């Protein structure tokens, strides 16, 4: 039978001790401010326009009209030298110079040479995109039309015109970091109680081991969940699918609290909690990086328990996904959270003995 008075006493004691630890008090308060600041400093919209400098002495008007559509920021220059200067000055990442006699060469059946200027910092995938663009321009200049007609069909949510802003891609990562940082505070507290033998003193009072686990669990889940929710509230993230998000974060807090118990069972002091915690943090944030950089997605990432938290938070936050879309994620998250919490308790119980 759980004793409410004992639980309340232990929870108050634990929260007091966590905030008496200057490092974790600082991390908690500073973290909250820093994460919110990072969110608001990141761009609120995604600029997906390709900028291009073009030197083409014989550009037909029709080409200008065709190129000045959505998604391309075209700058026409008067000379090859001006084109290169614009690239170096960062006015546009790529410059294309077409020969003055390009049309004549094409008509004569020759292969005109076009020049592509780019900086070393240009990512390879963008370089590829500009090369394709050059080929497209070459077709337009030569008056030829592609013999393939392409039809676009958007699968899943159509993000045209409402791409996910970097700050919103960042939120799942912030949520995982917040959950784990608060858990590290709990792990450090438990570890110090084991090493300082204060738990030994608690265990010769009417308090039972299960009271201890319930109170530690409440502190761990409460702090982690509370701070993650606070960040979502401040950043406006709770405006879409708030109940799904709350459920995901609650299960995530349970999961990380279980991990915190495990860390406490292997660590000897705050430094070793931090050392183990950083390793754990790196593993747990990999799924969040997948949201930031979608190209990283691989199937093994689903083996990391935080994947189901991150994916749910991402889909609920950025696409407004409801229960129907994420219930499988939540089910797996619940199972792993319960399993980790139970394993954490077992590891700690062994350490107590």
């Amino acid at each position, binding site marked *: 039978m759980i004793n409410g008075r004992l639980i309340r006493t232990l929870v108050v*004691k634990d929260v007091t001790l966590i905030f008496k630890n200057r490092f974790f008090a600082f991390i908690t308060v500073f973290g909250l401010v820093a994460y919110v600041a990072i969110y608001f400093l990141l761009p609120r919209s995604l600029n997906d326009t390709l900028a291009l400098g073009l030197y083409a002495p014989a550009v037909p008007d029709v080409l200008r009209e065709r190129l000045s559509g959505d998604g391309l920021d075209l700058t026409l220059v008067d000379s090859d030298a001006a084109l290169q200067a614009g690239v170096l000055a960062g006015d546009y990442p790529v410059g294309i110079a077409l020969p003055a006699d390009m049309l004549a060469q094409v008509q004569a059946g020759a292969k005109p040479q076009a020049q592509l200027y780019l900086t070393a910092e240009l990512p390879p995938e963008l370089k590829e995109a500009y090369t394709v663009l050059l080929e497209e321009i070459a077709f337009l200049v030569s008056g030829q039309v592609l013999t393939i007609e392409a039809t676009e069909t958007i699968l899943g949510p159509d993000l045209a015109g409402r791409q996910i802003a970097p700050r919103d891609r960042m939120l799942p990562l912030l949520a995982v970091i917040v959950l784990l940082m608060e858990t590290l505070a709990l792990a450090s507290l438990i570890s110090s109680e084991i090493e300082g033998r204060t738990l030994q003193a608690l265990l*010769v009072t009417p308090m039972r081991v299960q009271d201890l686990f319930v109170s530690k669990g409440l502190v761990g889940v409460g702090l982690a969940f509370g701070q993650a929710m606070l960040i979502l509230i401040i950043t406006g993230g709770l405006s879409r699918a708030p109940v799904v998000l709350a459920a995901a974060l609650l299960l995530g807090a349970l999961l990380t609290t279980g991990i915190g118990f495990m860390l406490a069972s292997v660590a000897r002091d705050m430094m070793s909690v931090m050392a183990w915690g950083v390793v754990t943090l790196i593993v747990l944030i990999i799924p969040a990086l997948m949201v930031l950089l979608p190209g990283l997605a691989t199937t093994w990432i689903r083996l990391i328990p935080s994947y189901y938290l991150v994916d749910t938070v991402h889909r609920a936050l950025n696409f407004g996904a409801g229960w129907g879309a994420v219930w499988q994620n939540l089910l797996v998250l619940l199972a792993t959270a319960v399993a980790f919490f139970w394993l954490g308790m077992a590891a700690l119980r062994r350490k107590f003995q």
Partner: protein
Amino acid sequence: MAQAVIIAEELTYHYGDLTAVNQVSFSVAEGEILGFLGPNGAGKSTTVKMLTGQLQPKGGRAIVLGQDVARRAKRVQAEIGVCFEITNLYEQMSGADNLKLFARLFGVRDFDVDALLKRVGLDGRGQDRVETYSKGMKQRLMVARALVNRPRILFLDEPTEGLDPASAQAIRSVILEERARGATVFLTTHDMVEADKLSDRVAFIDRGEIVALDTPRKLKQQYGKRLLHAEVELPDGRLVLRQVVLDQVDTSQAMARLFSEERVITIHSEEATLEDIFIQITGRGLT
């Protein structure tokens, strides 16, 4: 005879192949102070852990306040106070907050923290963080913490080890006050002088077994020899020592001879210490 509140029946505990406590049996009466003496590693702390429900005995059983500790540890722990050998206080909390925390855990109503702090000589320092306390102050706070629930039995594990005389004396006074209140005290120590001063009975434990258990007086009578040391002056002016064994059949004749035949300069009696007796019984000292 007062009722026994601690009964150990063939208590046994071993860590792997090492037998720490081997079939130990004894009882402690209500209101009694039992000194539990032995060198480091003799099995004192393991015995205390079994009596206080921190360890499950591998054999035998511990009955405390009429309850089998292994089965009803929490019921027993609600009525006892334990002061550990190693300081285990919440160092970042104040002394008063440490005591209040444990008072709440024990469900003590109307807890007077200031009175308890005053009892152990920590009045005026209650609001300071424990990490600022000296070793003696921390130990006094440990004793105070063991008293928050007005325990019927007080288990004290080396409560005065390494303390300054003032702190040690403060703790001894508290122990005697608790006995006067009617509490039973189980005092684990390897300080034989302290045990002799405080204990109604003492138990010697060595290599996990109790080798002697009785009042200090009876142990001294049984194992020790009372001696009389006399310093006498010889005719040539030299000083020599003479020794008379007391409580012997011919003691009075030996005394008479000493005073009639020699010039006695100084005289004093000496009785065996508990340490002498421990060495006599076990063949080794306490350290």
